């Protein structure tokens, strides 16, 4: 008879860890709910349909939010003033943005309509926006039921030519080669700019700018090729960095399916201020939840700077916290692509056992989450042949432990962003392994007193301990102490703090209100 847990994990220990994480999330959540950011407010405007740039290529959402910020009004929420202008001037929100940009309208000086009127208008328009997102979601469901999709683990590959049109050709080729998810990697540097570039772009480095137009271009291309290959092809991008919630909104509007979305990643790897990105993350996840977008968290990255064997507990602890934070944004488990990775040194004797243990443990602890499993990257070298073997072992663990999303390793990982055939070679290898070992995971059991089982139990025990420690000192303090990925960040350090505001008493964000209701967040209280 097979045990409930192949790893004989102690359910009580899991509960302990989860409870600690929940407490951590609760206290973070109170912190978050007291604040708003420029990005959150720009997102509200984008959701109302504000788009385009001014003469200096500054996006109108930035123009309007900066205008309100200068007027000292942002802590009340941008929505109120824009909607007021709609009422007062009879203009569309787009027209208001353009007028502000042209300097012909000053929102701060307009007399305010009654709160009731504003709220009514605000909810009415917001409903219309949400309907559009709902329609996108329905369209995705429709595609999925009509065309179907590849079996899990989904094959996830990146395109990164820097040119959206060239990305299209590489992405379509990848879809034909068998990819299930196409991620358009962003250009270096984008995450640190405090606005979203505009229009279709053809020049990026190590990736292509995330813009709404680029999303649209790629979405169309993937729908087209999806019809031809008879499989819905998911589109992935990055809502992280300084524009987290804005990109979530753009993604919801353009029907993206998967989003990298993790404040911790931004804090640790982009040195983004932790207050800023925690607040941004909360709203971005509400949008992702509603849009049916699967988020990917970034725990895998910890192992690119820190040692994978040692840091395993902190990866798990972070996953627990990310789960709880996601729940507080209304994100169902089915949309939680919690990240982890196959990043141990290939020189390790029995390293495969540890990797397998780790992956199986994540699977059991987050049984419904479509776990995002990252391939070897840090220990990849210019030796493409050995690299292909590393990726093969990774693919084995992926299929043996039923990962949800398999980011395919490229044999050229240490050399360049993938060439058109690098993806093909990776996909071919993964498909072969997934089929040839399809039911292998179900066929085997681990020795109860063996290394695999012991390792998982150790990691879980350590993670639970870590979480309880974090609960005691607080999440933000834990980060300051370098408890994640060996990187230390402070409360007031990093980029973007200037964009954080305490909410005023009468702060109002109509989308937050509606989404809380839609996502059942009002009811949710532990």
């Amino acid at each position, binding site marked *: 008879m097979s045990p409930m847990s192949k790893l004989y994990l102690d359910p009580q220990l899991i509960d302990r860890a989860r409870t600690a994480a929940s407490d951590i999330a609760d206290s973070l959540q109170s912190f978050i709910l007291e604040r708003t950011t420029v990005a959150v407010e720009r997102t509200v405007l984008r959701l109302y349909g504000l788009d385009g740039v001014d003469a200096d290529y500054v996006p109108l959402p930035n123009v309007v939010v900066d205008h309100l910020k200068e007027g000292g009004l942002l802590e009340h929420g941008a929505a109120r003033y824009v909607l007021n202008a709609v009422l007062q001037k009879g203009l569309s929100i787009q027209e208001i943005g353009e007028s502000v940009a042209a300097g012909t309208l000053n929102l701060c000086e307009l007399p305010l309509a009654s709160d009731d009127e504003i709220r009514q208008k605000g909810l009415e328009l917001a409903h219309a926006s949400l309907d559009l997102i709902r329609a996108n979601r329905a369209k995705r469901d429709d595609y999925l039921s009509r065309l179907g999709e590849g079996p899990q683990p989904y094959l996830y590959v990146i395109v990164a030519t820097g040119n959206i049109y*060239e990305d299209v050709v590489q992405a379509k080729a990848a879809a034909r080669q068998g990819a299930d998810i196409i991620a358009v990697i962003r250009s270096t540097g984008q995450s640190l700019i405090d606005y979203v570039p505009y229009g279709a772009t053809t020049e990026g480095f190590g990736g292509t700018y995330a813009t709404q137009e680029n999303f649209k271009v790629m979405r169309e291309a993937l729908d087209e090729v999806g019809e031809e290959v008879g499989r819905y092809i998911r589109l992935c991008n990055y809502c992280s960095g300084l524009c987290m919630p804005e990109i979530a909104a753009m993604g919801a509007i353009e029907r993206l399916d998967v989003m990298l979305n993790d404040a911790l990643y931004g804090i640790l790897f982009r040195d983004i201020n932790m207050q800023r990105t925690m607040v941004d993350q909360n709203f971005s996840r509400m949008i992702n939840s509603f849009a049916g977008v699967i988020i990917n968290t970034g725990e895998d990255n910890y192992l690119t700077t820190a040692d994978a064997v040692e840091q395993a507990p902190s990866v798990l602890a972070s996953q627990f916290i990310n789960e709880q934070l996601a729940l507080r944004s209304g994100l169902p488990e089915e949309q939680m692509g919690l990240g982890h990775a196959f990043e141990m040194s290939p020189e390790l004797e029995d390293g495969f056992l540890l990797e397998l243990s780790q992956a199986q443990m994540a699977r059991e602890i987050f049984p419904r989450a479509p776990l995002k499993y990252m391939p070897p990257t840090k220990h990849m070298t210019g030796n*493409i042949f050995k690299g292909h073997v590393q990726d093969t072992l990774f693919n084995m663990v992926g299929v043996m432990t039923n990962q949800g999303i398999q980011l395919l390793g490229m044999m050229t990982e*240490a050399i*360049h962003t993938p060439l*058109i055939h690098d993806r093909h070679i990776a996909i071919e290898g993964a498909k072969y392994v997934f089929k040839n070992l399809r039911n292998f995971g179900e066929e085997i059991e681990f020795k109860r007193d063996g290394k695999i089982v012991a390792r998982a139990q150790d990691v879980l025990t350590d993670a639970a301990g870590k979480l309880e420690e974090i609960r005691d000192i607080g999440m933000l303090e834990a980060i300051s102490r370098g408890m994640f990925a060996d990187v230390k960040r402070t409360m007031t350090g990093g980029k973007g703090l200037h964009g954080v505001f305490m909410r005023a008493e009468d702060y109002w964000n109509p989308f937050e209100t509606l989404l809380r209701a839609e996502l059942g967040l009002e009811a949710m209280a532990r």
Partner: protein
Amino acid sequence: MSETKRYEPWKDRDMTKVRPYGDTFDDGMIQLSFSIPVPPGEEAAEAARQLVTQMGLHEPAVVHQHDLGEDFTFVVMYAKTKAMIDYTKIKVAKVDSPRMSFYEINEYIKEQIGRKITIIGACTGTDAHTVGIDAIMNMKGYNGEYGLERYPMVEAYNLGAQVENEEMVAKAIELNADAILVSQVVTQKDVHIPNLAQLVELLEAEGLREKLILICGGPRLGHELALELGYDAGFGPGTLAPDVASFVVQELVKRGLK
């Protein structure tokens, strides 16, 4: 940072100027690996770069090198080529007789030739790889296609492996063969070339060459090489019985060898 001019050379491709492509259209990107008889080190990397530069490649990057022992070094490289070919001018010698089905071939023989035809086949010389010729000839066939032995209108004789050319010719005479099929799988140091050439000479010496269809096949063989060696056709990997039989019967008729 962003420009929107749509330059999409991959859409309206200039097929007269085709070069390799990896990341940026027309970048000429190529992966190479090879060994050089020098010890590992920075000089080995430079030697490798100079070698590929001599091949007209630019931006050569040695991304990996490994000591093979005995003063040999293995390198993995990426580099870019400026080479460019005119795809519209490419002509490949192809077996051009239309491919018929099992049923059609037998019908064709009945109608156009009016008698059973005789085909002998073997893996010749010191080569003992019969799987390929068996795939074409044996009853049970290959990949879902019957072999020639199953064809009602074909007398097929599979002589097996390591058959000497002399024996092939003797059998062809004895059986009055319409076609000879020769398989060659071992190609190290080009051992197949003299062996294939010798058969042609023997057949010519016997005055038989023009009286039958002579075909060779194998994983490293192609139609072009076959023609060069004086064969009527050559078949490579993945060939099935109907491919060969279609050619044989149409060629017999074309050459009036009914």
